């Protein structure tokens, strides 16, 4: 039974990735604009020089990218290269490939999002659990509403507010970037501290933007679980409050939280992209913003594909952890 659950999740992941790749294949072909022409026109606008044989150049590039073949053939070729992990070349930083650009940016994003998601999930869940526990002090219960309001505000707005007050007015933290300009990434203590200093504001933004979400979810679940017979029976057994709280209450209420963690990855990565672009943090979000500005379509699609892949894989990981937390799932796969 366990195997069929695993199998279902894997099939789902494959479908998600296939859908993503297909969408990313068809979106540009629905578009009236020709990415290569757009790119050359942009270059022409900035340099003031329009090559006379523009159409020939475009045609030769189209042959190079296989854009002159019939659509089904293109789709098959495209799927093949996606399977090989080849996402094409960048138009703005030619001859760099999309993979290279993503490879440079992805570690920053992964670092930022992994750390903040773990912190946010744990702290938010803890706050929500405490807030729904009837014996908690009033100030803990009152904490949730302001956190939820914070979570509702778009993270870019929070980011701009933090930049304005903390970095600009108080001038205690750097405004943008991931390290001081002029520094080259290395593994020295000073560089790592510098990166940490730069990461505080983007991380704080993401934490503030998500902590209320987890607190709200956990509070809602907690309120439900609180009325469950097994919590009441645990109290009838004369168990101390702490034991009831952790082993009966939190332990059960956290299960849907884990499920919603899997569903939240898409939103988290979107928020990450937006926050990065506000802070000029050199992750895939900033790369995406730059690619949009430069009409670098291949990079845009590549990043789209990578984020969807990342979300799919993260969901799979959570799905694989879930049966360890809930013994019921091993038998009835729901």
């Amino acid at each position, binding site marked *: 039974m366990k195997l069929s659950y695993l199998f279902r999740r894997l099939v789902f992941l494959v479908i998600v990735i296939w859908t993503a790749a297909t969408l990313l294949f068809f979106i540009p072909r629905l578009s009236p604009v020709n990415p290569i022409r757009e790119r050359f026109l942009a270059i022409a606008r900035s340099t003031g020089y329009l090559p006379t044989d523009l159409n020939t150049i475009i045609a030769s590039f189209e042959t190079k990218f296989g854009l002159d073949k019939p659509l089904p053939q293109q789709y098959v070729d495209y799927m093949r290269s996606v399977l090989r992990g080849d996402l094409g070349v960048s138009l703005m930083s030619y001859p760099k490939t999309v993979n290279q650009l993503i490879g440079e940016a992805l570690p920053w994003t992964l670092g930022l999002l992994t750390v903040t998601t773990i912190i946010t999930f744990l702290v938010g869940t803890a706050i929500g659990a405490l807030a729904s526990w009837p014996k908690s002090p009033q100030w803990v219960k009152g904490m949730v509403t302001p956190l939820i309001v914070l979570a509702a505000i778009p993270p870019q707005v929070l980011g701009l507010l933090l930049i304005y007050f903390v970095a600009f007015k108080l001038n205690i933290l750097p405004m943008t970037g991931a390290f001081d300009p002029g520094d080259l990434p290395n593994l020295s203590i000073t560089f790592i501290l510098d990166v940490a200093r730069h990461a505080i504001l983007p991380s704080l933004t993401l934490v503030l933007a998500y902590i209320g979400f987890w607190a709200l979810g956990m509070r809602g679940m907690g309120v439900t679980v609180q009325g469950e017979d*097994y919590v009441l029976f645990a*109290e009838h057994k*004369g168990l101390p409050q702490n*034991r009831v709280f952790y082993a009966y209450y939190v*332990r059960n209420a956290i299960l849907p939280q884990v499920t919603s963690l899997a569903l939240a990855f898409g939103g988290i990565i979107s928020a990450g992209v937006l926050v990065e672009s506000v802070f000029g943090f050199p992750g895939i979000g900033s790369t995406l913003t730059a690619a949009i500005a430069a009409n670098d379509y291949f990079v845009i699609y590549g990043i789209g594909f990578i984020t969807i892949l990342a979300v799919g894989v993260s969901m799979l990981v959570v799905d694989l952890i879930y049966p360890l937390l809930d*013994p019921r799932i091993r038998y009835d796969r729901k």
Partner: protein
Amino acid sequence: MTTTTGMPVLQVSDLRVTYYTDAGRTRAVDGVNLTLYAGERLGLVGESGCGKSTMALALMRMIKPPGRIETGSVLVGPAGDQVDTLKLTEQQMLQARLSRIAYIPQGAMNSLNPVMKIQSQMIDAMRAHNVKGDHDELVRRAEVALESVELRRTVMRMYPHELSGGMKQRVCIAISILLSPKVIIADEPTSALDVVVQRQVMETICRVQEKLGAAVILIGHDMGLMAQITNRVAVMYAGKLVELSTVREMFTNPLHPYAQALISSLPNLENKGVFQSIPGLAPSLLRLPNGCTFHPRCKYAMDVCKTLAPPQSVTPSGRYVFCHLYDREGNRVQQPAVAGNGNAPHQKVPVAEN
């Protein structure tokens, strides 16, 4: 004297529970007095919402806000080892639960933690009560408890979802007798089970109770079950115990008009196919009528019933009843007359025979 034997193990006096809601105050348990003797089984019956379950919770001291236990005392334990649970500290009360007074829950299907093995849930309870012994000893003790409710030892290593409803309820019973309490409250312990399993589970409860010499309060509205299982029956109406009698007296000669109505609503062989209902609806606890709370539905209602709450009458045999129809010794003082408060007498509604 009553037919019960043994010494008192539970003495409840003047227990009052109030719920403070937006719409007003609600007396869910209103001045209950009750004594329970070792080895006896008391049935507590009444319509839904009459305060039976609230009373059970109050005895466990598990009333939560907006509810509050206002007054009263609940003496638990045999003479010489008595404590008033309402006077214990929070910490002492935790210890008293399960070791002095245990509770078998209503929702058997859902009373066990779905993510913990049965074994852990049993050991949890023992650890909380500082039961001496290493892990193996606690495991053995849990096994003994499971065997005493006719469950195999292998159940220990299972999760609740691997057990049937009846097995889960047996596990709950096993947990509740782990520390040999003198009082066991069973709140509709068989309501979610099918009829055959119901019977087996009830027999199990009776057997472990006899072994422990404990007293059982059985809450429910299955009068047939009560007739078979219990020694005495208490009838609750709108937060008050309106009558308390031995099971024989209750079924042959109920005193309180509400008890009479409950008994005559039972189907029996003579009036098979005829269903008797109690006229009117149970009152909302928020808007209780003045005087005797039952008077709007009572066919004997007199003027005094509308203004004055009836005092307690105790018969020489130890039954007690709250009704203006009886004097302080429980003798009938008023001729039964269909009262003129506009209510129809008992209606007879034919129901289809099976």
